[in-house]
């Protein structure tokens, strides 16, 4: 019990001083996750929109596939990306293993199916509403896709947030391909795992609190934006 309280006060002290080691880890986490979510959106939003609009044979198969990939176990993704990037792997020459680049790739692979599947869901609903109008006005499909993406932008914020949440909280994949190397690839989740196993609960707790605050801040911001959009009937 003594330890418990002690850890908390130490954790708050670390946060209060804005400990540089802590700052470095937090900053790297955010950098990796932002990059991964950005890549996942660049790939996932157009694919999700295309799946919502285009009718082609085998479309249902793709939808099921992406819905399944949403639940990919992170360690499996970590393993696959590891095999790709290891010296013997097809992308070994890039020498990305145990760099933040490798972690970005792993997180992108995890997040892209989430963005695709949820974007498809959101845009299918809106497309059901717009489809006759698009057809009546003879809107080309890529223009229809842009229209859906734009008009559903507030709902899509939540989709992006879901991807962000999955990426920033993820341990299994980044620890395999990043290696949790101090000052190089140590991010919040891997640090928490390591510090906890070492018994340094203060740093682990401090990082945990930062993770919580980030999640809280992002969710609050998205909710505020969506609420004002709803008032304007744009959501």
């Amino acid at each position, binding site marked *: 019990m003594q330890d418990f309280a002690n850890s908390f006060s130490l954790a708050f002290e670390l946060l209060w001083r804005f400990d540089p080691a802590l700052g470095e880890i937090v900053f790297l986490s955010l950098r990796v996750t932002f990059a991964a979510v950005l890549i996942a959106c660049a790939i996932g939003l157009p694919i999700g929109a295309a799946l919502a609009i285009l009718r082609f044979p085998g479309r249902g198969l793709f939808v099921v596939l992406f819905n399944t990939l949403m639940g990919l176990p992170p360690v499996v993704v970590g393993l696959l990306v590891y095999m790709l990037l290891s010296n013997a792997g097809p992308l070994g020459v890039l020498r990305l293993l145990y760099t933040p680049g490798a972690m970005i790739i792993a997180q992108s692979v995890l997040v892209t199916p989430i963005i695709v599947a949820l974007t498809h869901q959101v845009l299918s609903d809106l497309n059901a509403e717009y489809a*006759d109008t698009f057809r009546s006005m003879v809107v080309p499909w890529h223009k229809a896709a842009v229209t859906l993406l734009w008009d559903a932008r507030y709902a899509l914020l939540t989709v992006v947030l879901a991807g962000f949440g999955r990426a920033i909280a993820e341990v299994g994949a980044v620890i395999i391909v990043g290696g949790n190397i101090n000052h190089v690839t140590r991010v919040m989740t891997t640090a928490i795992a390591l510090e906890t196993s070492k018994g340094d609960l203060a740093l682990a707790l401090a990082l945990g609190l930062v993770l919580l605050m980030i999640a809280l801040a992002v969710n609050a911001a998205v909710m505020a934006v969506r609420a004002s959009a709803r008032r304007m009937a744009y959501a």
Partner: protein
Amino acid sequence: MPDPRVLPFPTSPGEARPAARLPLTIRGLGFVADGTRILDGIDLDLADNRLTVIMGPNGAGKSVLLKLLHGLLAPSAGRILWGGRELDRQTRQRQAMVFQKPVLFRRSVRANLQFAVNLKKSPEATELLSILMDDLHLNDLADRPARLLSGGEQQRLALARALLLAPDILFLDEPCANLDPASVLLIEETLHKARAGGTKVLLVTHDLHQARRLAEDVVFLHRGRLTEHSDADSYFDTPASPEARAYLAGQILL
């Protein structure tokens, strides 16, 4: 000096608007959904750019007929020819439709209209935009979200958006249901201007007074069949089919 009674539709250089006068030929048109026959054996010739009103009781198949003519539904039987040509992407681009329930984009009024302008890509479309916004009293609403407009305002916006496409044929599905007399007048005046600008108008309405004011010819549908196609005068004075007579009598009693 442009004639204020005519909508100055943009045309491609050297091109008049002959398509609006092309005959719309419908032969043996049928539509079946879930095993139910909704339209059956419709034969109809709509020549010239007259303003045609389609009437008939609820569920007669008027909306389905418009959607078939506009290529939103595929016929189960028969064919639709416009100037001897099947409906395709190109011919459909020269048509526009105002739906029974208008679907507006989740954007401002102006952005909804700008969408049509951007599709059309003609320099005159911008001029047409300002004329339509004036005619349909949309200027004060320009920055409002389209979804928060009243029913009448939404119909005015939907009509403006359709006319921005400078259609050769304009389909309207009960555009004035639930509208106050002033809005009805606004819409009817705009339809007259579009007609004067060369557009053929096909209008579904239950409003007999409106039909009398606008119709040059009337098509009457009953339970998925066409029972009558007459000039407006003869339709209202001496309806040929018993169904149309009953419908007119019922309406007058209301």
